[in-house]
Structure formats: structure tokens, C-alpha cells
């Protein structure tokens, strides 16, 4: 059929001449008929630079404020971590600030622990009560019996408070449940952890190898920016992931590896590179030890051997191994971040570190830089901590994780079961971490809390953990408070500040204020000599000779570039015992552990069950943003990714709701099924942070499935105590009406 619109246009065009005049005239005559470009009017009367806290990356943002209302949040072009651009979550601060479910007043528990039954009280009452409880514990059990779980920038004031109080037991799930394995693997190899932001020069890489790191879903702003820059400059990707991740969709090679077998692949790649002498010989000669031991060890780690384990064809292993080596030294094997997968994670990270060493990327452009940072003097006149605390009881009695270099959060939890660790933990302060979703084995967390004398939670939202606390303090959000000066080791030396954009809403208070008030009530006032955090920051900056007014206006101060690459004349230091890159690890051998990474085949899921994998979605940070209505507009609940062929085999429909039941009978869901080509047949995938149970999270409650509830077992990393969580198996049950 002909396009009738075209015909109509032709016919009607004849009428145009005659009518254009008339219609033009009518518009004129009737007046007011311009077509002004409408302005939505969301620009602020003031624009305040500050630091984002929708995740822990601390990008510089500009908050627009109009009539006292934050209208929008955009990137701060002056800030090195955002360069004017933001990840989706960064735009969502408005949704947090105006979340109707925010904690509004101090709460004291009235029902049984966990009943979520609280009474709103005055700050004085809540602070007095808290101080009394903490002093009681100190008196009865000593100060070390109080542990602080803290994640997030504002936690520094509570760490200071706890240290002053006499305990050094500070743990965050961002270590043993997250980066820990990687940090130890790299520390053992290069003598330094990778840190956050990761010290990688993604933007200049020519070949980027991702072992699970799902950049693009993992949305750490600067990394994703550099990732895209690299791609636009022609970098090629090798993505190893059981799931066709966003990054896999951009890769030259996607290797849908059998979960838990990465060490075999990494060893086989090294086998190829070492056998074919594709490594950077000069670099290794100059900086590394242990190549001979490694060469010998790799002899039988052939691509054919690895193929059987990983499900990746041997030719492909050879081809990709050569490809990775071919781009050296600008060939980056991304160190990963969330590495708490299988319990051999530090060794896997070590294998990744060693591969980086073979291609000579560490210290090189397109590989790893050696960070620089600025110094800011401490606040003058703060007394030294009087008490030298006992070491943390974060390991079971008689157990040592020799290379753990941070406190294990789950270890502090476990020490709350009387008599199981060096000494008992009796009180928790929980700042900015939702232990119920962040720690595996949530039932164990609940059981541990039964033994406690006191729990204080400081949060912005009624996260699950606050439901178990005795006292809950409503903290002002990052847009309503000062925090300490941010000093970040990075490619460029810089400092940045977080300053309030609007006044705290409701009866919420900055953490710095809360910590100081508690200190006053515990005779520790001398440790908080400043008026408030703003005054503290000002004084520190002035003492360092920084232009405070300018910092407040710009939000950040960037110092001149210093060399961070060997190519820039930097002489790299490897602070290992040998002062070299340790391919073969004497430290590990001395501790009775494998000096070279050993591959152990993972346990197979029983018939009818699938290995549960988890990860991120770009628009959310764990469970902390799932109640954020603004961000949830584009992603309101997680889905269970299941291979489409399997779904069909099982008679499961895309979009239908299913329950997940794990090997120990733990159940989660109901959750929508995503039947997809994008995942292997032996595993399923969930975005972490859903299935909230807190009544206060009115939007998020009951949406999707909580992966943490299914993490009823973990495999502990013998090097550093990390909790490998990808070792749980689930079966899928249909939801019957």
C-alpha cells in the first residue's frame, strides 16, 4: 500500500501557500503565540561542591540547591575521580535525601531484639543511655569488648571515638567479604595492596583482561570512564565470566568459564607465556624473583589440562594467552575487587598478580601506577590514645590467617559467641554497614547478637541491622554534613572535602556530632577539641597551608603531577621481603602454604541445583540504594538469571516468580526469573542487595531475592580469612499461587 501520509502531504502542500499566510496571521492576531524554549528551572540558586556517598568511591559532585531544595546532582569537573561525569547512583543522592523512609529521630528498642519495635526519644536520652551502656561494658569486660563495624567515609569519627575509648576492633565487610583476597594476593607478590581506587591505568591499556570484574555493571565511576576511554582508543578485551556481562558484550574474547576454575586458566596462560617466552624478560630480570620455580611449576599446567577444568578450548587458551602477552606492557589483568568467591581467592589474586608481572604491567603505563597523595596535618592538640588495645579476636581460638592485614568483620561477629575467640565481644557499634546483608550466614549474625550487652547502629535508613540494635541514631546524609578531609592515593595527588549542601532534615545529626557527644558523656571530650567537623576540617587545611575558601568553592585541590610510572622515570619499589616481585613466595612457603597458586577443582553442584553467583547492577549500590525511589525507577528489583535452555527444559517461563532454596534449606524470594542466553547452564546469578525484610524500608521490602540469605556456607581463605561465598547451591521452585 502506498504511504498515505506522503500522499496527504503532497495534496495538503498545495493548500500550504494559501493557508500559511492565514495561519501566520491568526497566530499574530491572537497574540502570545511565540514558542519560547521552556526551561525546567532545575538549576540551583547555589551550587555546592561536595563528595558523593552513594558508594565508597567518593566522586566529586556539584549539588544544585534552589529555595533550599536540592534539585539535581551533577559531576564536579574539577574532581579527578568524576571529571564532571557521574555514575547513575551519583545522580540519585536526591532520592536518598528525600527518602520518606529515612531515620528521623533517635530510637531506643522497646520490644525483643530484632522485633523492630522502637520508641522515638530525644538525643539527650539516647546519648546518655548509649554512653552508660558503653561505659558499663568497658568496666565489666574491658574496652576491647566493643567492636565497631564501619563502612563509609563518615566512620572515621567513630573509629577515633573507639580508639580513644580503648578498643581497636574495627572491621568492615569490605575486607573479608570483598577486597581482602585481592589485597593479600597483590601484597604478597608486589609488596603493596591494590587499594581503592584501584591503582590501575585502565585508560592507557591496550588489552584488558577481566576475571569476573564486571565493569559497566560494577559502576565505579573513574574506572568505567577509563574503561570506555580505553575502548574508544582501540583497547581489546578478554573477559572471563560465566555470565555474558556487559563487558563481555564488548570483548574480543568472551570465555564463559566454569565457575571456580579461574586459577587453572591463569596457570595455563602463564604456561603459554612462559613456554613461548612471551614475557617481559628485562623487566623480570630487573624486578622479579622466582621465575625458574614458576617455569618448573607450570610445566604440566598445559592448556589441554586447563581446558578440561575450565571448559575453555585449549586453542582458545593459547590464542588468548598470546594475545594478552602481545600487548605488554600495556596489558592489564584487572586485579578485580570483590574477590571473596571460593576460599582460594588470595591465591587466585596472586595468579593474576603474577600474570601482570609476566607481562611487565606493574608500574607501567596501561598497567599499574604507583600512587601519590598529599599530606594534610593532623588536628593539633589531640592527645595520643591512652590505652594500647589488645589485638582483635577476629579469628577462632587456635586459628591463624597469617596474611590478614585488616580485621575480619565476620570474625568480630563470631567472637561474640562466648568463649570461641581470644576474648568475647560484648557490644557492637555499627556505622554505615548493613551487616544482615553484607555478612554471609545471616542466621549466625542474629545468633551472635543474642549474646551482646549492647548494639548501637548509626544509619540513614532503617536497614535490617538497625532492627536488631538497642539504640539507633539517625545520621544526616552526606548532603547535610561535614566529614573529614578526603586524602586519596591516586594517579594525581589531590585532596577534597565533603561539606553540607543543605541543613539536616528531621532530627538527624552528622556522625561527627554524634561521636563528639558520646565522647563528652564518656569523659573523652579532650579527643574532640573542635567545635564541629567543619571547624576541624578548616583547621587541618589551614595548618597544611591550603586555601580553605577556594576548597569550599571548588571542592577539591589537585597538586602538580608527580611520576607514577616507570616510563616517567619513577624507580618502582616492591616492599616485599626480597624487595622484588615475588613470583615464588617465600612468605607463603614459610607459613606452610602453597608458594605458587594451586588449583583445586570446585565442588560440583548436585543434580538439579545451580551455583549461585552474584554481582552488581549499575544503578544500585548493594542494598543501600534499593529503597531509593529515584534510582529504582529504572531498576526496581533483581531477577534470577537462568540459562534459557534450562528454563525451557524445566518448564519455567521468563518473568515468572520463583523461590530459591539452597543446600541448607534456606529460602529466598520470590524473585522474577530472567530466562537468558547470557549465562552458563550450571550457575544462576542475582544482583546483590534485594529481598529486604525491614518494615521501615517501605519501598524495598519484599522486592526480589536476598542473596545473603542463601550464603549459609562459606569457604574460608587460609591466607587471610576471607569468606568465599560463591560456594552455595540453589534449586529453583515455582511459586504456586
Amino acid at each position, binding site marked *: *500500500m502506498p*504511504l*498515505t501520509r506522503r500522499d496527504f502531504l503532497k495534496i495538503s502542500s498545495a493548500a500550504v501557500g494559501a493557508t500559511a499566510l*492565514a*495561519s501566520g496571521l*491568526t497566530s499574530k492576531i491572537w497574540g502570545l*503565540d511565540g514558542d519560547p524554549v521552556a526551561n525546567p528551572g532545575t538549576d540551583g540558586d547555589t551550587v555546592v561542591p561536595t563528595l558523593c556517598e552513594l558508594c565508597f568511591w567518593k566522586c566529586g559532585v556539584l549539588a544544585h540547591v534552589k529555595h533550599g531544595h536540592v534539585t539535581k546532582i551533577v559531576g564536579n569537573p574539577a574532581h579527578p575521580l568524576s571529571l564532571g561525569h557521574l555514575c547513575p547512583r551519583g545522580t540519585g543522592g536526591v532520592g536518598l535525601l528525600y527518602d520518606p523512609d529515612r531515620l528521623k529521630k533517635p530510637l531506643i528498642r522497646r520490644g525483643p531484639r530484632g522485633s523492630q519495635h522502637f520508641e522515638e526519644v530525644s538525643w539527650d536520652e539516647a546519648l546518655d543511655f548509649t554512653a552508660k551502656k558503653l561505659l558499663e561494658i568497658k568496666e565489666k569486660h574491658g574496652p576491647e569488648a566493643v567492636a565497631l563495624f564501619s563502612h563509609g567515609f563518615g566512620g572515621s569519627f567513630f573509629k577515633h571515638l573507639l580508639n580513644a575509648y580503648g578498643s581497636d576492633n574495627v572491621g568492615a565487610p569490605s575486607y573479608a567479604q570483598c577486597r581482602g583476597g585481592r589485597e593479600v594476593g597483590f601484597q604478597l607478590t608486589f609488596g603493596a595492596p591494590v587499594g581503592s581506587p584501584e591503582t590501575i591505568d585502565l585508560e592507557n591499556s591496550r588489552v584488558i583482561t577481566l576475571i569476573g570484574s564486571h565493569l559497566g555493571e560494577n559502576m565505579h565511576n573513574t574506572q568505567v570512564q577509563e574503561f570506555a576511554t580505553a575502548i574508544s582508543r582501540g583497547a581489546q578485551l578478554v573477559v572471563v565470566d560465566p555470565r555474558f556481562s556487559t563487558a563481555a558484550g564488548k570483548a574480543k574474547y568472551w570465555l564463559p568459564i566454569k565457575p571456580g576454575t579461574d586459577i587453572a586458566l591463569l596457570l595455563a596462560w602463564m604456561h603459554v607465556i612462559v613456554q613461548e617466552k612471551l614475557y617481559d624478560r628485562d623487566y623480570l630480570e630487573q624486578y622479579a624473583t622466582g621465575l625458574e620455580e614458576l617455569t618448573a611449576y607450570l610445566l604440566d599446567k598445559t592448556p589441554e589440562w586447563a581446558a578440561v577444568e575450565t571448559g575453555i578450548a585449549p586453542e582458545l587458551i593459547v590464542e588468548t594467552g598470546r594475545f594478552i602477552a602481545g600487548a605488554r606492557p600495556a596489558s592489564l589483568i584487572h586485579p578485580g575487587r570483590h574477590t571473596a568467591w571460593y576460599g582460594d581467592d588470595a591465591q587466585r589474586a596472586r595468579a593474576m598478580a603474577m600474570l601482570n608481572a609476566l607481562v611487565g604491567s606493574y608500574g607501567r603505563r596501561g598497567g599499574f601506577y604507583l600512587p601519590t597523595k598529599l599530606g594534610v596535618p593532623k588536628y593539633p592538640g589531640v592527645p595520643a590514645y591512652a590505652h594500647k588495645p589488645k589485638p582483635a579476636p577476629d579469628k577462632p581460638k587456635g586459628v591463624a590467617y597469617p596474611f590478614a592485614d585488616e580485621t575480619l568483620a565476620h570474625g568480630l561477629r563470631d567472637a561474640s559467641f562466648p568463649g570461641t575467640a581470644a576474648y568475647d565481644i560484648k557490644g557492637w557499634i555499627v556505622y554505615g554497614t548493613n551487616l544482615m546483608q553484607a555478612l554471609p550466614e545471616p542466621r549466625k549474625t542474629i545468633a551472635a547478637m543474642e549474646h551482646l550487652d549492647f548494639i548501637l547502629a548509626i544509619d540513614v535508613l532503617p536497614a535490617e541491622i538497625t532492627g536488631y540494635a538497642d539504640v539507633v541514631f539517625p545520621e544526616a546524609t552526606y548532603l547535610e554534613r561535614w566529614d573529614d578531609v578526603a586524602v586519596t592515593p591516586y594517579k594525581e595527588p589531590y585532596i577534597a572535602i565533603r561539606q553540607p549542601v543543605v541543613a539536616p532534615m528531621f532530627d538527624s545529626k552528622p556522625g561527627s556530632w554524634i561521636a563528639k557527644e558520646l565522647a563528652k558523656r564518656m569523659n573523652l571530650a579532650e579527643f574532640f577539641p573542635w567545635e564541629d567537623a567543619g571547624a576541624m576540617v578548616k583547621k587541618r587545611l589551614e595548618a597544611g597551608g591550603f586555601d580553605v575558601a577556594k576548597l569550599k568553592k571548588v571542592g577539591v585541590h589537585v597538586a602538580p603531577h608527580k611520576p607514577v610510572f616507570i616510563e616517567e622515570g619513577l624507580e618502582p619499589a616492591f616492599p616485599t621481603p626480597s624487595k622484588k616481585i615475588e613470583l615464588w613466595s617465600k612468605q607463603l612457603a614459610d607459613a606452610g602454604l602453597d608458594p605458587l597458586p594451586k588449583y583445586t577443582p570446585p565442588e560440583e553442584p548436585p543434580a538439579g541445583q545451580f551455583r549461585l553467583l552474584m554481582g552488581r547492577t549499575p544503578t544500585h549500590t548493594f542494598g543501600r540504594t534499593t529503597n531509593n525511589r529515584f534510582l529504582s525507577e529504572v531498576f526496581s528489583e533483581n531477577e534470577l538469571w537462568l540459562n534459557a535452555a534450562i528454563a525451557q527444559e524445566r518448564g519455567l517461563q521468563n518473568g515468572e516468580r520463583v523461590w530459591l532454596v539452597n543446600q541448607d534449606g534456606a529460602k529466598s524470594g520470590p524473585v522474577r526469573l530472567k530466562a537468558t542466553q547470557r549465562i552458563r547452564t550450571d550457575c544462576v546469578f542475582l544482583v546483590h542487595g534485594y529481598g529486604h525484610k525491614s518494615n521501615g524500608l517501605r519501598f524495598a521490602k519484599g522486592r526480589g531475592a536476598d542473596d545473603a540469605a542463601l550464603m549459609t556456607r562459606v569457604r574460608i581463605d587460609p591466607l587471610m580469612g576471607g569468606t568465599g561465598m560463591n560456594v552455595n547451591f540453589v534449586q529453583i521452585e515455582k511459586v504456586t499461587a
Partner: protein
Amino acid sequence: MHRLPVETVTTRLNHAIDPSLHIWGWEITLYLFLGGLVAGLLILTAALELTRRQRPTSAALQWMPLVALGLLSAGMGTLFLDLEFKLHVYRFYLAFRPHSPMSWGAWILLLVYPAGLLLALGSLPETTLRRVPLLGRLALRIAAWSQQNRSLVLWTTIAVGAGLGVYTGLLLGTLTARIQWNSAVLGPLFLTSGLSTGAAFLLLCKLDAVERALLLRWDLAAILVELLLIAAMLLGFASGGASAQLAGAALLGGPWTAAFWSLVVVTGLLVPLAMELLELRRHLPLVALTPALVLVGGLALRAILLAAGQDSGYRLLP
């Protein structure tokens, strides 16, 4: 590698747009139906007079132009109800947009009133007109003019009526974004259907035998033409490219197939066709059922094409 995506995920979820378009509902259905009906009524009333070369004798026909204007007002009422910003309705008459069928329609609607009124004044008996308060004298003078220039008035009415009838089809037919509406048949189809419903409406009234016989013949012709046009439309879909086939799918084995075939084709066309044939051949006494079915069919045609067409966007194509 496959050309078609096996999985598509979109974040767009705009109300009434996603997952499928449904911006126009019963209001526009009625509007289109009434528009077609009024077009049919005006054209047929004028045509009867032209054919018989005498002013209508039955009261029904004398009053019909005014009834039509009443129905048209109801149609404009439903259009108004559909507007999301009702206070801005006057904006239709601050501009004439020659590329916009909707704009043509708005202005045509305005033309129908004087035409219909002129026709009515020339049809109604003088006694009736005299009873019009105040305007009686003016009405009489216009009536006189209308009678003196009768053929001009009649042909104008037919022209305006045809414009109205075609417009209701063109409104959809020019919205080529809805691939199912993207058919040149739609304009003639809606006009013919308008004529048929107009005839049916008239047949429900009290007419004389000659008028009745003429209308029956015309309706039969209209129904036949309509069937041909529908066949042409479906053939076009079936033999066209991927997009045409997709457009036709709704009517040929899709969600609207059952309703379309049962309500429009069988109830609205085939059954009345048979019954009207019987009536003509065997001189069966007329039952009100036949015209009622035609009206139902005409309404269903618009309702179904309106709904199915909205659903048939390019989003369905790879």
C-alpha cells in the same frame, strides 16, 4: 550470527505508551463512529432529495440534518473528553495546520454546521420554522434562500459530508507510524462504512416506501464496497512486506482476529447483507434488527482498527 535480537530489554515504561500504545480509547472510537455516521446521514439525506427531485415529505428526513448536527456535537463532545488539556481546546481554531488531518478535521467539523443548518432550513416545513422564537423571520429568509439554491445546498452538503467521512479514515490512515493504519484503503473504507451506518440509521426511522427502497439499495451497495475494501486491505497486509504482514497479523490470526471477523465481517456486513437481499427479493417486512447490526458493525470496525492499530508500532519490527 542471528540478525534478530533474541532478547531485548528496555527501561522505557511510559504510561499508556509501554509495553504497547493505548492513548486513544472509547472516546475516539465514538468520535470516529459518530463522524462517519453524520457524514453518511448528511450525504444520504441530500442524495435522496437529489434523486427524488423533491423536498422530503417524511418528518424524519426533514429533521435529519438537525439530528445529524446533534450527533456531531456528541462526537465533538467525546473528542473533547479525550483531550488531556481541555482548556486548550480553543487552540484547534487558532491555527490551520495544512499537514495535519486533525486540523483539517477540526475545521471541517465547523463547516458541517452551516451546511447542515442550511439543508435543514430548506427541508423543514414553514409552519415549523415560524415557531422558532425570535429568529423566525431570519430562519424563514434563509430557508427561502436554501430552497432557491437547492442544488448548491445539496451538493455542498454532500461535499462537506464526504470531507467529514473521508477525514475520519484519513486521520488514522496518515498516522503511518502505526503500520496497520498505513493503508490507502482506510479513507474510502471509513467513508463507505459511514454511508452504510448512515443508511442503517435512516432505515430505523419512519420513512416512506420509496425512500426506504432507495436506501436499502444504497446500503447494499455500500456493504458490498465495504467488503471489497476490507478484502483489499487484508490482501495488502498479506502480500506486503514484513511490516505489512505484521500489521495484518492482528486481524489475521492475532489478538483481534476473533472480534474482527465475528463482529465486523459477519455481524456487521455478511448477515445484514443477506437479510437486506432477502428483504429486497422476497419483500419481507423490514425488521429493525438489520440496521442495528450494521450500526454495531460500524462501531466495532472503528473500535478494533483503533485499538489494533495503536498496537502496531515500529517497535514490533526488528
